[in-house]
Each structure stands twice: as C-alpha cells, then as structure tokens.
C-alpha cells in the first residue's frame, strides 16, 4: 500500500467506493431491507453514474462544454433497443444479446461523437456546446419521425407513418415514430450496471493518467503551449470526446433495457436531461470522478425519496441543489470547511507519519 503512488491510491479509493456501495446494497437487498422503490432505482442509478462520469471526461478533462450528452445516450438507447428487439428470437441467451447490444450502442454513439467532433473540435471557443445542443435536439426529432418495420422481405423504412412502410401481413413495426420502441427485453440488472460503472471508471481513469491523458489535459490548460510542443490538438480532443460519447451510449443501453417502452421525449432525451447530467458533473466537482458518482447518486435519489412531500419535493430539490453548490464552491464555505476539517486533517497527518 505504501509503495503505491498518489494517483493509483486515489483510483483505488474510487473503485473501492463503488464496490463497497455495491456490497452494502446487495446485502440489504438479500436481507430484505430495501424498499421496492429503491430496488427499482438501482439500474437507472447505474446509468446516471456512467453518464456523469463520461460527461466529466469531456467537461473536466478535455475542458470543453457539451450540452448534448442526452443525445448520445439516445443514440445508444435506440440502436441497442432496435437490435435487441430484432434479435430476441435469434439470440435467446440474454447475456450474449446484451453484450452485443452494449457494443452496438457504444459504437453508434461513439461514431456520432467522431462525426460531430471532426469539424467542431478543430475550432477554438465554445462551438462544441452549441453544436452538441443542436445535435441532441436533432436526434430526438429524427427518432420521432422514424418508422422501421420488419417482415419476411427484410426491413422497411419510412419517415411518414407506419402505414407507408407497406408491411405484409405478419410484419412487425419495430420503431413506431413518436411511440418509439415497445417491448424491449428487460435485460439490465444491477450487477451488470455496477460492472459497467467499474469498466467506465477503468477506461476514464486510465485514460486520464496515460500519456494521451496528459496531452489532453495540457490542451485544456494551455492550448498554445500544447500546440508548441507538438501535440496533435484535434486528435487528442477527438479521442476524449468520442470515448465520452461512447460511454454515454453505454448508459443509454442500460436505460433502454430497463424499461419496456422507449420514447424520445424532451423529458428523457431532451436538453433538460443534458443539463441534468451537467449538473451532476458541476456539483460533484469538475474533473473529479468520485464527486460525479456521488452527485449523480444523491441527485437521482433525492426527488424519489422526497415523494412523501408530493408537490413540495421539486422545491426542496431546488433548495438542496443551491445548498450543495454553495457548500462545494463558495469561498466562505470552503474556508469554513477547511477550518472545521483542519483538526481532523492534522490528526490524520500525524497518524500517517507515525505509520511511516
């Protein structure tokens, strides 16, 4: 333990935190101490944690603002749900099917990330924010006019309505415009979700501390200096952004395979959702993966746990957001926190010295 350097130790703490929470929750589920509300929330929580961590890669490490993260999630969700619905008979084994769905969702979202990134990431300034904002809305609208059906002759596409697909008898409509995809197999489980969180963390943390990661952070800190030492700016930016998009696609896969119906509405895939994910990142600390995880968990659980307060819960939720923001970022709060924690810290210092 002593030989480990600081970053490895910090990473281990993050992994450990996820595993400890997982074991604690599993233990409580096994002993029947978890309400069904909370059990139903476990899988969405995994999806939101992955979203927060992946967006933190763009916002915190790459230093670009993305306002269309829900759009990548939407791409991942719909492509994977489409696949699963088609393959439900061909591949009866849920595990294999889910694995392929994950790869498809991640790949589709990653490709969208690259397509957007190639022109936009060459520019200086906040263009990425504008383009991703538009991307999210475009994806939502495209999905809402898309009709895809399947019969013995293969796939039929239309952007008008499900009748113009011209399906023969016995053909099924898979993507039904605004009604989305209905009847996706419910393959997401909490265990898979946690494994995917760990995989996401592994990818992001290792990228951060690799040679490429240092290049990415150099671009964030000073673009001109980074360019002057010969770092290929577009390449590294694109790398971070597409990885972030692909991981958001993974979160979309989890989301899509948890509910029986998948519709693209402003509520779940609109810019509101993108801002929500950004809130997770900002409140948890930009560039701080552990903070993102904690913020995503707290902010997803909070409105559900406040259900008892009915209409007041949104008010309280907003107040909590403001309080958290002040506690995390206001200079006075930081000062107070340092003073309050200094005793604890000194003790901690002493004990580590003694141990050494």
């Amino acid at each position, binding site marked *: 333990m002593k030989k480990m350097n600081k970053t490895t130790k910090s990473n281990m703490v993050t992994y450990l935190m996820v595993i400890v929470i997982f074991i604690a929750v599993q233990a409580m589920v096994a002993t029947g101490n978890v309400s069904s509300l909370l059990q139903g929330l476990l899988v969405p929580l995994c999806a939101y944690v992955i979203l927060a961590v992946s967006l933190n890669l763009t916002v915190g490490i790459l230093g670009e603002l993305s306002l269309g993260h829900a759009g990548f999630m939407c791409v991942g969700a719909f492509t994977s749900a489409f696949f699963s619905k088609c393959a439900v008979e061909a591949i009866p084994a849920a595990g294999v099917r889910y694995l392929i769905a994950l790869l498809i969702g991640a790949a589709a979202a990653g490709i969208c990330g690259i397509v957007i990134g190639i022109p936009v990431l060459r520019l200086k300034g906040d263009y990425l924010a504008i383009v991703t904002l538009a991307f999210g809305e475009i994806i939502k609208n495209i999905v809402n006019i898309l009709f895809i059906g399947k019969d013995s002759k293969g796939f039929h596409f239309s952007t008008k309505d499900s009748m113009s697909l011209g399906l023969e008898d016995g053909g099924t409509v898979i993507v039904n415009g*605004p009604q989305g995809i209905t009847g996706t197999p419910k393959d997401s489980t909490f265990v898979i979700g946690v494994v995917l969180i760990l995989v996401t963390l592994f990818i992001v943390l290792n990228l951060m501390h690799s040679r490429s990661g240092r290049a990415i952070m150099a671009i964030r800190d000073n673009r001109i200096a980074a360019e002057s030492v010969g770092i290929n700016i577009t390449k590294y930016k694109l790398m971070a952004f597409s990885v972030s998009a692909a991981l958001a696609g993974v979160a979309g896969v989890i989301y899509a395979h948890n509910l029986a119906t998948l519709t693209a509405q402003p509520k779940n895939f609109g810019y509101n959702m993108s801002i929500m994910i950004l809130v997770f990142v900002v409140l948890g600390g930009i560039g701080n993966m552990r903070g993102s995880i904690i913020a995503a968990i707290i902010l997803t659980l909070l409105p559900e746990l406040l259900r008892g307060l009915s209409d007041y819960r949104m008010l309280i939720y907003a107040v909590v957001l403001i309080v958290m923001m002040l506690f995390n970022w206001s200079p006075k709060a930081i000062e107070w926190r340092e003073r309050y924690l200094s005793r604890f810290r000194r003790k901690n210092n002493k004990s580590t010295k003694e141990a050494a």
Partner: protein
Amino acid sequence: MMKMRKALSAMLVAAMTMSLMAGCGSGSSDTGSSSGTSSAKEESSDEAVFKIGGIGPVTGGAAVYGEAVKNGSELAVKEINEAGGINGVQIEMDYQDDEHDAEKAVNAYNSLKDWGMHALLGTVTSAPCVAVGEVSKDDNIFMLTPSGTAVECVQYDNAFRVCFSDPMQGLESAKYIGEKGLAKKVAAIYDSSDVYSTGIYEAFVKEAENQDFEVVAAEAFTAEAKTDFSVQLQKAKDAGAELVFLPFYYTEASLVLKQAAGMDYAPIFFGCDGMDGILAVEGFDVDLANNLMFMSPFTPTSEDEAIQKFVKDYEEAYGSTPNQFAADAYDGIYAIKAAMEEKDITPDMSPSDICDAMKEAMVNITIDGVTAKGLTWEASGEPSKEPMVVKIEDGDYAVVE
C-alpha cells in the same frame, strides 16, 4: 489538497450511505406509519382499508390530465367512503406523480407497492402506462387505466382500461363519417409527435379505404410548431375537403378553428375525445365552434341524472367543469368497487390474489357510469361501450346520437 479531498469524499460517502439508509428507513417507517393508520382505522371500524394507488402527471406538460384524473378519482373515493365503502370497508387513495415519464412512473409504482397497494388506477398517459404494465404483470397487481389509449396499455391480462383505444376512435370516426355521408372529400391534420394523435390518424386512414369517402390531404404538425396551422388548412382547402378531421386536443383545435375562420374556410370539423373542453378555452369565440362535431364518451351538459350530479359535485369541490379524464377516473373507481364486491374481496388478501379475482370479476360486472350506460369489459381489457357524437350548437354541447 489530496487529504482534504479524501476527507470530503469520506464525508460525502458517509452522507450518501446515510441517505440510502434514510431512504430505507423512511420507506420502512412509511409502511410502518401507514400500517399504523390502518391499524388505527381497524380499531375504529374493526376493519382494514383498501389501498388504491393512482399514478399520473400532476406536474409538467401533461399535468392537466393527471390533475383531472386525480380529482375525479378522489371524488369517487369520497362518495364511496361516505356511502359505507366497499362491502363496508373504507378506501384509501394515494396518488403519485409520474411527470409523464416512463421511468418516473415505474418509480411511482414501486413506491405505491411499498405502501401496500391493493389495486392500481393508472396510469393516465400511454407511454408510462406501457412501462408500468410490464412491471405490474410481473407482480400480478391489478391495474385499470382511466385514459391510457395506446394498444399496448392493456396487452397483459391484469390490465383493463375505461377509455377507448386509439385505433378504436379512429375506426369509429371513419365509420361515422362514412355511414352518415357527411362528406366525400376529407382532410386530416394530426400531431405526428404525439402518440394519441398518430394512433387515431392511422386507424382513421385505414378504415377510410372501406368507407365511401376519400382522404384528399393528410397534413402533420409537431409539438414544437403547434401555433400556426395556416399551411395545413390551405392545403386542405386547395384539395377541396368538405370535412377536416382533427384528432388532437382542444387547445390546438381552438387555434385551427380560429385560423380557418380567418381564411374563410368553413368545412365540417370533426374531432375525437380530446376535443372535449374546447368551449372552456379562455378568449375563444364560441361561435367559431358552432357545428363542430366530435366523438366523446362524456358531455358535462348531458341531461342524465348521474352526470348532472357528478358535474355539480365536481364543480363544487374543484371549481372547474370536469372533462372526460375526470369522468373516466370516476367510473374507474366505481368499476374497481364493483369488481371487488363481485368477488367479496377483503383487504387481508394479497395483491396477487386480489388481481386473480379481479380479472375474473371484471368481465362479469356492468357499470352505469358517467361515461356510458351498461359499461362492460372484455377479457382483453377493452371496454365495450358505444361512442357518442357530440355537436356544438349555439355555444353548447348537444348529443347527436
């Protein structure tokens, strides 16, 4: 810096696990307190209560419908409780918000399950209803949706609905127009981003092939652009449509009527149950709606005694005229009551046993409600009732048939 971060994160982890625990704690204390209240009731009336859950949007864009269902069902529950309850057992209702979101609806469902729900009245809107249907099937909990119109809402045998399905409305509208010979050339305007509107439109066009009229124009709009309909109306006018079919809600329809009047276009306008409420739109000139026809299961101005009483009580309690959502919910609660009485269900049965009994009971009961007389159900979950066509004359609703 690192140390401080570590300390902070330790604190946050602690806070989070606390909140998790608190969640469970409050969950269990919730059930504790509710069982406490029910046991308190037990002492007073020697009996437990029926717990009926409700799910619908009471915040967000679809809140109007959720509120109506909430009010309608509360009114019915109050009446039943005052009249002595179901077989002498009182009803307790808990209505949860789903914000018209499938994910939130499942959360609401789970939280009702923790509360100990015996049967569910919900959910109000279609997409959440399909998602909740999937989980309620696994738990085998009885659900009756007052207004979930999509076909998949009642795909499992534990789910029933009070309203007409989307295809049914489209089909009946086309049949009515064809059989009455209202027009030879028909145009349809629909909201392509809305499940309800698209569902009706598709069934309407499909049935139109069998009827003696032709669909000459089919124009779509989306939720993002629902204030200007002049393009769609102009196309309908150019195609020579004598009747324009408007399968969407009354707020947009009021604009369509206004803009049609502005361009001197006066075909017959024909709507579906979403048209109900158009006369109450603020700033809307009622004269424009003259001769507007729509298919509706419920008209607040009906002479019928039960409807008169319902409308009066509702207006007294909530200060507004009930729409068909409230009426559907009101009938839904009475249907649950009738089914429970049919099988002599008691609150000490498990929700799954109740569901099995209710499934059998639903096909045997007949309700004289506010949305229909002699309302019965098929095992598929669909209600069988006759749609009524309402025509607006002199600023008031009049039933045509």
